[in-house]
């Protein structure tokens, strides 16, 4: 990727609130990034066309339109990482952004630490060569993607085909939240995207088989109102600092 032969990754920050732009810029520049700013859709279209950034940070509510429209356009010609900034309680916005191709979202108000962690993770993913690891380990569980086998503490674990597909979707997302819709479409097909209760049943099954305490899962986490994500390294603190 571009970023690998550039001295500093370029981040386009699309946000209409000057105060937010200012502190995000300060944080990103302290991290060694080059920051371009845009306060409107029109300006961000120009920026995107002129100097392909390595990452787009996108606020959804802009004075001249909806950030989602920009995201949908962008996804027709670019797979650049997109981090969406959204108001904390607007889960529908987050889901819409993820379904439209956003890589991750950050709920306002967010802290500098959380912001930088997300940006680093997205840039790392974008720069990593496309070949994926064939063996994934979390907790006591090891998943061999080539052999399609799952073991827990060395013992083979039996997953049903759908359970395996769901686990595969979570692994492929690399720690990001996968929306309910994406999981339902991936595991059962596009006709089942409204059957959220299927996920309740199957996620409970996966947790029983893979989590050491299924009631307090450390790896297969629920993002209420949004979807699920797989965390490889168990956090012993809050699920996502700052996101309720």
């Amino acid at each position, binding site marked *: 990727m571009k970023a690998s032969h550039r001295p500093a990754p370029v981040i386009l920050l699309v946000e209409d609130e000057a*105060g937010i732009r200012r*502190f995000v810029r300060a944080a990103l520049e302290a991290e060694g990034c080059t920051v371009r700013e845009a306060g409107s859709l029109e300006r961000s279209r120009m920026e995107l066309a002129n100097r392909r950034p390595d990452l787009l940070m996108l606020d959804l509510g802009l004075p001249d339109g909806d950030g989602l429209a920009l995201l949908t356009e962008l996804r027709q010609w670019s797979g650049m990482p997109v981090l969406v900034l959204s108001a*904390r309680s607007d*889960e*529908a916005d987050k889901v819409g952004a993820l379904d439209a191709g956003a890589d991750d979202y950050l709920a306002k108000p967010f802290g500098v630490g959380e912001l930088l962690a997300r940006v680093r993770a997205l840039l790392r993913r974008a720069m990593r060569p496309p070949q994926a690891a064939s063996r994934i380990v979390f907790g006591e569980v090891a998943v061999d993607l080539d052999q*399609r086998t799952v073991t827990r503490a060395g013992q083979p674990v039996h997953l049903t085909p759908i359970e395996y597909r769901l686990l595969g979707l979570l692994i492929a997302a690399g720690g990001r939240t996968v929306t309910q819709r994406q999981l339902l479409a991936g595991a059962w097909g596009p006709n089942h995207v409204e059957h959220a209760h*299927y996920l309740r049943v199957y996620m409970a099954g996966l947790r029983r088989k893979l989590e050491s305490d299924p*009631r307090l899962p450390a790896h297969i986490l629920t993002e209420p*109102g949004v979807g699920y994500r797989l965390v490889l390294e168990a956090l012993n603190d809050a699920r996502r600092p700052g996101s309720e």
Partner: protein
Amino acid sequence: MTPDPKRPPGWLDYAKAALAVIAIALVGAPLLGQFDLANIAMLFPLAVLFAAIRLGRGPAVFAAFLSVALFDFFFVHPHFTLAVSDLQYLLTFAVLLAVALTTAELAARLRRERDSAEARGEEAARAQLAVESERLRSTLLASLSHDLRTPLTALAGLAEALPLAGPPLPAAQAELAEAIRAEALRTHALARDLLDLARLQSEAPHLALDWIAADELVGSAVKSRAHTLRTHTVTLELADELPLLRADAVLMERVLCNLLDNAVAHTPAGGQITIAARATPTTAPATAPAWLEIEVCDNGCGLPPGREQAIFERFVRGAEPRLADAPDRAVESTRVRATGDEGTGLGLALVRAVIEAHGGSIGARNRPSGGAAFTLRMPLPAQPEPPPPEAPTLSASRNT
């Protein structure tokens, strides 16, 4: 005056109808001899028409009969008796009566339709007004929400970015910057809670309903409060195979988080917090469960006796926060400062608003063994079709 369509005509209306008929008779009297009797008879339906339009159906029918009677009495020979010398007048009476009654019926029907059209119009106007004011309310809330929260987000972020803009801050200044950030976050949380409360108390609050597994809900709430709960022991007592709830996942998680925050705030470090969930039948154990009960218990200082319901109320009225009179209030404010986010004092009011918006109920009580118990009851809907069973194939065989 047009009478109230819902009020049956009174004696006064009948008297007015009679007066109308007498007036017509008086108008007709001087014409006797100059006009044909049949033409004079044509005057009487005017009185009936008046009665039907202004007084209602009953007085109109009364006027119709009275017209025939007066016409016969004063105008038809022999005068001043009801006797009839010429039988052809019986036809005049019949026609007069038929015209008068038909007029009465038609006019009365017209009046009813006009009244109901007016009522419909008023109702439509009221409905329109309600829609408008609800729309105004939600637009106002949305823009307030944005205008209050955006600068607070910026303020918290700017305070945190302060050290990044130059050389590292001296400890005292760093502490002040951190205090600014914490206060901004706290104000943000307060604005959020206030606006959410207002939104939930609107006539038809918007809920993003979804199927929710209670154990999953409890798990994610405990996980998101792991930092706050680290000083306490948390025990989960979740029944197996809990039925699914139909609720707004985000709001329900807020409910549990607020109850957990409340429990932590009023239970000394090292205390015990228990979260239990079970389905309860309404009557006989044989019937399907109708409620899902989730209970958050602690072994802390308990609730002020006799105020078990008031704790949900007082916040709404904006009175002093709960337990303002309790000695450990200071503990809570320290905690608020430490986490910089939660504890706006609206937590329990919000809990109740969310649960009630879902058709559920919440209660609080002191446990006999000490500490408080908050029990929320959520109505259980008919459960959805379970996912189709899977045929064991491919990866299953690999996995065994």
